[in-house]
């Protein structure tokens, strides 16, 4: 009986398929997988799954993602974007004022500390 083995490298990460083992039952499969697939690689967890219990659909049997143009799903599909708004003189003045106020406040704090 073949058991597919999935290994997790870091806590919270995905279990990634890393191979299989032959074993008569789940306990032996875990025991063999531990040596065969986790001995030399960083491992936080292993899953073993009977190969026959895995359901599969193949690209030969279906058309993954549909058959028609779905380029609207991707950012790259949008070639026209709006140009950025031009900054106004008013916006610029506001920024300068804010910077001056912050400088003044800092100077005030330093004077207090030195007093």
């Amino acid at each position, binding site marked *: 009986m073949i058991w597919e083995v999935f290994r997790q490298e870091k806590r919270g990460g995905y279990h990634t398929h890393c191979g299989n*083992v*032959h*074993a*008569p039952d789940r*306990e*032996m499969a875990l*025991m*063999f997988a*531990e*040596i*065969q697939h986790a*001995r030399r690689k960083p491992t936080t967890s292993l899953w073993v799954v009977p190969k026959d219990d895995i359901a599969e659909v193949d690209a030969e049997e279906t058309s993954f993602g549909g058959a028609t143009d779905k380029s609207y799903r991707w950012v790259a599909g949008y070639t026209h974007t709006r140009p950025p708004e031009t900054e106004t003189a008013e916006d610029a003045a506001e920024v300068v004022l804010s910077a001056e106020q912050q400088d003044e406040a800092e100077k005030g704090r330093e004077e207090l500390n030195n007093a």
Partner: protein
Amino acid sequence: MSTTDQTTYNGPDGLAEEEREALEALLYRLADDELVVAERYIEWAVVAPTIESDIALTNIAQDELGHARLWYDLLADFGEDERTLVFERDPASFRHSTLVELPFEDGDWADAIVRSYLYDIAEQLRLEALAETSYLPLRDRVGKVLKEERYHREHAQNWLERLVTSDEGTENVQVAVDRLFPYALTLFEATEEADERFVEFGLQTRSLGEMREDWLDVVIPFLESLGVDVPEFDDAADLLPEKLGRDGEHTDTWPALHADMTHSYNELGRPEPEKIMDRDE
């Protein structure tokens, strides 16, 4: 249990002559067992029942070799090195139990499994009796070795439970138990340097006799639960085989195994054993 007034030792300095002798005897028993059991397990590489069982058993052999290295390394503090400890050592000076040196019959997987079961249960008891040893460099190493032993025991037990699911498998296990059980008892045999002094100097917190009782209490019920009979005895010592190993008396199979083990070293005329790992601290 260790007593709180037990003197501890940070290294060879401060050991009295008798204490040093007892410690060396203890380390040779440990290291030689691990080296030789591994040497036999490795014979299963490529010929085990399946590739998975091959990898599992040879991996256990690698673990045991690693443990042997840890114990031999402690003997290096008494002026020995790999050359004198293994490759150029007189086979008659090895102190391993005769259980670990016996050859396997061709394809007798049940022997490998029964042997590792009997050995690994004893191994666990022995390491637990060393967890509080007065020799601190030894104590420091016991913890990490014990961690690896869990897999060894589970491996043997899982296999045994499955081997006895058929009549043929049960018969094979029974034959292996009948043959190996008396040899396994040699694991606990005392010698002139061993045992009483191990406990007296705080090197070990249980005596060999106590450990043998503990071992019998684990092994017999487990094997019987599988439907396997254990040889009957009034006194376990009556079952002991002729050659004990612990006193340097080995079976006829040992010199050939030792020759195999040192073959490459001798044939290639290596002046020094290859050192592939630094001292493990």
